[in-house]
């Protein structure tokens, strides 16, 4: 790698209209062919930073200070350099690609605007091939809606690539994709930086993905970089309490262990103007941490940390094993030859499985594998086309409203998006009390007492009880969803991707809670997820679903360590794993 950085950022500060900084004091440099990962949870300012690297500030924001130099030129304020010197790969190509532009035209537009001298069919073909897309005329005439999600993302990469800029900014480019496609895109990004020497800034909330792709990582919290250094070193031996908490929060199928969530929620911008923003959640905090904002200082060669107690940050506890409950008890729920259709398409092709009392079963699969449909069929929200579902030997009707109240009480579901699943105009305590009243027949007072007990159980602070859902954070809302499901006194709780909308630190504490509750209340859990790390952290048994059929089934440690079906192996190879990535690069 040459010494001159391809992109150098100095003292970047981005303010809201009211003068509060969303991003402050961000400085870094990336060499040609190097990938810098920027990780952070929602609200950390990582996307705002990514956009500012192109000199762009979102609505209501402005770049108040700092410079960005790319390819030896100052980027700030010069839009013509975008695409030519520095380009941007968006998070959701489905909406970022113009729906009225054919693939070929989108690439033509870029060349015509930035490199008109190179506007040739060969240049377009080269960009498509560079992004591993077919370059034939038929493909070039496709519209974005005619492409798969992976092709759309490759197309966005081709657009970013076509003018051969020395720097590319990638903002969560694989977030919406399934793991197998994600793994392929990551391989292609890696190839591009090696073959073309493009410097890359890769923004993501997913530490596993960043560990796989980035040479160096910068961890952002509340608008500042709190730690920066070589990826493997930072993840193995964090020098900031936040990084440590983050690493401990990540479920890892390569190293199953008990998850440790971080206390509290992410800091809002401007919350701690005079000190380290992580203090309220930090186990190591001392009074000096709140006195002034700790500077990002070199703590060892090549590593910087903004933690006053950098030397004392303990290594993440990755060895703490988790207990896996023995399987094979009495069956609570039996699914026998279930077939489910959406219109004319059959999405579940006759699957059979059983869930024992108090057992935690994970149903994993990619999007479209039929896992959510299966969950909805069990909950009585999707009428099966054929097959039987029995609860304690009694047949369950296809629709919840035709089931007996007792049956409805015993099976509860927690939905993926807690914002949509809660009543926006009802206080959360009333929402939790309702199932206790309606399904368990408690009177109003008893139901509220029960709701209070459950909300304590899911560790919701009592000042939140009388609030409306919009006044709660995402993690708090999901806890309300869980409390509401428990209020019915269920024997089985179906959790449909309940943590996929949450930040990893919040996800860890929700999963931690789930495991505890399962043990304390003897509830069976059916966990619907695409995340093998989540499976490894909480499930006892796992069912691998592909194209509506169960490919493999077994104890979680067995399946993850010695997968028998090629599909399971493919999923495991593709799923990002922190431990594997760190081991591979170390």
């Amino acid at each position: 790698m040459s010494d001159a950085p391809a992109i150098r950022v100095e003292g970047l500060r981005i303010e809201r209209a009211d003068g509060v900084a969303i991003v402050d004091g961000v400085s870094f440099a990336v060499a040609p062919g190097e990938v810098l990962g920027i990780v952070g949870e929602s609200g950390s300012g990582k996307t705002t930073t990514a956009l500012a690297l192109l000199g762009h500030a979102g609505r209501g924001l402005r770049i108040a200070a700092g410079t960005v130099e790319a390819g030896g030129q100052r980027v700030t304020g010069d839009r013509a350099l975008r695409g030519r010197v520095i380009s941007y790969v968006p998070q959701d190509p489905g909406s970022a690609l113009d729906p009225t532009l054919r693939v070929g035209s989108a690439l033509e537009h870029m060349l015509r605007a930035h490199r008109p001298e190179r506007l040739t069919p060969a240049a377009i073909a080269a960009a498509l091939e560079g992004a591993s897309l077919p370059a034939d005329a038929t493909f070039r005439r496709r519209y974005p809606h005619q492409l798969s999600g992976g092709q759309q993302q490759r197309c966005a990469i081709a657009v970013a690539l076509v003018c051969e800029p020395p720097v590319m900014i990638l903002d969560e480019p694989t977030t919406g994709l399934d793991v197998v496609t994600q793994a392929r895109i990551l391989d292609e990004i890696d190839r591009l930086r090696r073959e073309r020497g493009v410097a890359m800034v890769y923004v993501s909330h997913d530490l596993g993905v960043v560990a796989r792709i980035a040479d160096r990582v910068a961890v952002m919290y509340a608008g500042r970089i709190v730690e920066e250094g070589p990826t493997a070193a930072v993840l193995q031996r964090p020098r900031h309490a936040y990084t440590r908490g983050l690493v401990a929060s990540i479920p890892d199928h390569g190293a199953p262990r008990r998850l440790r969530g971080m206390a509290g929620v992410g800091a809002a911008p401007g919350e701690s103007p005079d000190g380290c923003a992580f203090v309220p959640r930090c186990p190591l905090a001392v009074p000096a941490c709140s006195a002034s904002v700790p500077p990002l200082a070199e703590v060892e060669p090549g590593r910087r940390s903004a933690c006053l107690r950098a030397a004392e940050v303990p290594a993440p506890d990755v060895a703490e094993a988790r207990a896996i409950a023995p399987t094979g008890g009495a069956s609570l729920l039996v699914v026998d030859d279930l077939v489910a259709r959406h219109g004319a398409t059959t999405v579940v092709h006759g699957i059979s499985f059983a869930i024992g009392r108090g057992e935690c079963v994970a149903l994993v699969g990619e999007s479209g594998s039929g896992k959510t449909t299966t969950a909805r069929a069990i909950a009585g929200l999707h009428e099966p086309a054929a097959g039987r579902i029995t609860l304690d030997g009694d047949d369950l009707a296809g629709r919840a409203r035709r089931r007996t109240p007792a049956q409805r009480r015993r099976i509860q579901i927690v939905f993926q998006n807690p914002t949509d699943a809660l009543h926006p105009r009802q206080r959360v305590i009333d929402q939790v009390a309702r199932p206790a009243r309606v399904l368990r027949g408690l009177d109003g007072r008893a139901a509220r007492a029960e709701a209070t007990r459950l909300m304590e159980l899911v560790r919701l602070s009592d000042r939140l009880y009388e609030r409306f859902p919009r006044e709660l954070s995402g993690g708090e809302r999901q806890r309300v969803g869980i409390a509401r499901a428990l209020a019915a006194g269920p024997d089985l709780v179906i959790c449909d991707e309940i943590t996929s909308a949450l930040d990893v630190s919040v996800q860890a504490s929700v999963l931690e809670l789930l495991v505890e509750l399962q043990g304390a209340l003897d509830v069976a859990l059916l966990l619907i997820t695409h995340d093998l790390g989540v499976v490894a952290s909480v499930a006892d048994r796992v069912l691998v679903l592909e194209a509506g059929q169960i490919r493999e089934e077994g104890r979680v440690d067995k399946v993850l360590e010695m997968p028998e079906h090629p599909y399971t192996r493919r999923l495991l190879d593709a799923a990002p794993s922190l431990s594997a990535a760190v081991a591979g690069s170390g």
Partner: protein
Amino acid sequence: MMSAVKRTGTTAFLVRRGLAGVVTLLVASVLIFAATEILPGDIASAVLGRNATPEALAEVRAQLGLDASLPSRYLDWLGGFVTGDLGDSAAGLAAGADSAPIWEQISEPIRNTLILAGITIALLVPLSIVLGVLAATRVGRTVDHAVSTLTLVAISLPEFVIGSLLVLVFFVQLDVLPPVALVRPGENPLAQPRELVLPALTLLATSLAWTTRLVRAAMVEALASEHVEQARLNGFSERRVVWRYGLRNALAPTVQVFAQAVQYLVGGVILTEVIFSYNGLGKELVDAVVVRDVRAVQSMAMLIAVAYIVINILADLLVVLLVPRLRTAAS
């Protein structure tokens, strides 16, 4: 209706919409016929006036074919309409003429209306796009407020008020334009272009307001989309971002409102034609109602219905052409 287009392509879409249009028109023909037959009084009593003795009425009615049964008169009218024979004007026959084809009576007003509508549309479409885009790119600023306020005022004022105001300014005060647009029979209104200015301005003022507001709304939405943001991040000039990436995606939602404006304009803009004494379809329709020339009213109403349906189909077709997702199947 739109979602079904995906699978079957543009031709099938046109065929289906065409068939649906024919059915709609059949229903419309029944309603038009029934509604006009229910109206009290008929051409015979209107023509005879105070001389109407029962015998005279019966004689005139027989002469005009009004004594036949309702279904047979309906079928006779509809059959004629479909084959292009609108029949004879009852008023003309009652006045003693041997034949008074309705088509001859209304073809000139139709042409005049189309000329006025054409001029208005030719100005309306570019003007509302430019004003809408200007306002949308300056949301919350002076230009946006000015456009929003002026269009709101224009929407609130009925066309006879706007027409009268225009006459007041351009004829009474400035005396630069004529206050009426009298087109004599056999004369082309384009021969007197000055006379068309005020009627066209009146129509423009009434329709420009809502088309502009809808272009603005569609444009605001398009400019907030992620692909427009991405176009900025791809380094295209703001001008190109607005006019190519923004407007191109805002066009489809505005097509419907332009279609409504065209329907309004070709459907006989009665008030404006009356204010300026312009010999168009609207004025002709009013005249025919006054003399109870039921057959002429039915034929004109039916022609307007046909125009509405055709414009609707064309607008839907245009939307399909503008939105690739609607005309190409997903893979």
